[in-house]
């Protein structure tokens, strides 16, 4: 058992190209620095969230979570994500399909527009909506006349979240679909498949892991978005507070246990996201490696 283990190590070492291997102390130093950095900036804060949340015992932690305002913020965050993520999923797939598989006028403009939310600060994106739909904005008076509430209400929060999470799915899919080309679709069409059949049976299975990856990132951002939502929500407790906003309010009121308790929920979401992301990435790489294998055959 031990001897095979040692053999494995020796083989692993032998596989390393000597020219790129540094002396032991340099390797140790670099790895040590990296580990210390990760510990200080990633692991320690993560642990601190849970320690703070549980500082006054599990009972207080639980009651902070089941507080009606906390539950309302949780519901709102879930609702926002439940609307924004599917919308961006459909949009992202449609946009990448168009960009990757067709040639049309204004294609590069569309690609640039998709990237816009990445380039603009989330606070600015929130402000844009206030400017547009707010009382003194362009559409404000008309909306008010028709009794439609957008700013300082749920629709505004959903819109702002959608804007900010707009690029995640499309950005993930465009390079993948471009790499896959259009031959599979052409083959399906020549075999008599309709456009829908081609999409459901050929295109979608080809991109499913990349799509899942994009959706996970999109969801994480939708639940965690602070800046844009903060500008547009109005911070009405129990009504327009999402979880990140609720954390801020509690913290500003020196209710540290409450703030960290809600924060711990968001942290759990983040951890679940990471695990899912790793899984999707792993599957995604398999898809890509199949791609590469096929490319190798074709050379």
């Amino acid at each position, binding site marked *: 058992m031990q001897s095979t283990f040692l053999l494995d190590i020796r083989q692993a070492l032998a596989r390393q190209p000597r020219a790129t291997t540094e002396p032991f102390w340099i390797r140790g130093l670099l790895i040590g620095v990296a580990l210390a950095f990760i510990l200080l900036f990633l692991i320690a804060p993560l642990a601190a969230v849970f320690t703070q949340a549980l500082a006054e015992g599990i009972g207080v932690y639980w009651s902070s979570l089941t507080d009606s305002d906390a539950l309302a913020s949780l519901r709102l965050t879930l609702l926002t994500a439940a609307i924004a993520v599917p919308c961006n999923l459909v949009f992202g797939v449609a946009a990448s399909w168009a960009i990757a598989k067709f040639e049309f006028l204004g294609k590069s403009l569309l690609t640039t527009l998709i990237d816009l939310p990445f380039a603009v600060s989330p606070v600015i994106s929130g402000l844009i909506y206030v400017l547009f739909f707010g009382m003194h904005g362009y559409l404000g008076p008309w909306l008010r006349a028709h009794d439609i509430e957008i700013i300082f209400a749920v629709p505004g929060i959903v819109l702002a979240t959608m804007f900010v999470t707009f690029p995640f799915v499309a950005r993930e899919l465009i390079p993948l679909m471009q790499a896959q080309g259009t*031959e*599979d679709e*052409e*083959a*399906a*069409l*020549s*075999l*008599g*498949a*309709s456009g829908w*059949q081609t999409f459901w*049976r*050929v295109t979608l*299975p*080809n991109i499913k892991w990349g799509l899942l990856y994009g959706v996970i990132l999109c969801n994480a951002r939708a639940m965690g978005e602070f800046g844009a939502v903060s500008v547009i929500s109005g911070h009405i407790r129990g009504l327009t507070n999402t979880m990140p906003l609720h954390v801020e309010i509690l913290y500003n009121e020196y209710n540290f246990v409450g703030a960290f308790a809600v924060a711990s929920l968001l942290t759990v979401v983040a951890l679940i996201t990471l695990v899912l992301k790793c899984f999707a990435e792993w599957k995604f790489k398999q898809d890509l490696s*199949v791609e590469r*294998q*096929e490319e190798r*055959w*074709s*050379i």
Partner: protein
Amino acid sequence: MVDMSIEVQHISKHFGSFAALRDVSLTVATGELVALLGPSGSGKTTLLRIISGLEVADPDSGGILLHEEDVTDTHVRSRRVGFVFQHYALFRHMTVYKNVAFGLRVRPRKLRPSAQEIHDKVHGLLKLVQLDWLADHYPAQLSGGQRQRIALARALAIEPKVLLLDEPFGALDARTRQELRGWLRRLHGELNVTSVLVTHDQEEALEVADRVAIMSAGRIEQVGTPEEVFHNPANEFVMNFLGRVNIFHGRVEGDRAYLGPLEVEYKGEYQATAQAARGLVRPFDLDIQTEPNNEPGFKATVCHVNAAGPRVKVDLMAESGEPVHVELGHERYRDLGLTAGQEVFVIPREINVYVDDDLQ
């Protein structure tokens, strides 16, 4: 006999300002296998894609007839063509079985065969391409040659009116390519489905096809049996493209051609004034003599001899400085006893002379 031909009538195609096809017409008879042969950019793949419906010809140009039916405005999914792609385009998330069954399963419910019929059909096709044992494998687990045979089985599953193959062996290694060529030839003989094959490999075209259409710059230069196009090339391009040639630059004056070290009779139209011309000679139409024997020829020095192959390849340098390439039979080579550096006489047996007008 049912007419199962393909007719291409005056097709033109532009990509932006680039003319990919210029007024191309071609008829493929029932059960025939025609190869479209040409260098890259000659428009052969575009023509194939227009026949299939994957590409649409210029709106003001002619039409496509499959089995005497005008399909110019028919969508690719309704044309029922079997299309085989260079990179196979197998659906990677489906098993071999599901790949082959795809064309049957996507049919509207009324036209769809029963599960049992699909099963029998797919296994029949897999037997036909001799890969029945791979039914449960995924494309990634197959070799290139196997993938292309599966792709062919998939195309045949829809009982296509015509079979269109776009450089089907282009992505394979030389040995597999050789094997699959012979296999395709036999399969075509068995199925007798009207087929068009696109290739840039002249050897492949001449070996597999009943007739060859040689394309250049969006036009068909010549259509004929492999023997015809090889031995009676219509023009300089065709001759140059089909196998290696020696080119001697010079001029034609009256009924004589003066081509580098050669002077021969010009059998074409009498040229009153001197015209630039080229003489093209195939390596096996040149003979080597160790002594001059009054035949029109020229002096040359042997540079290199390669006797490893079915023919002996001799590289020489003409006295006038042109490199010359000759192919001899092994027997002839032994009789001559050639060595590098030896001075010999090169005598052309057959020379094709083209004056500049022929180029257009």
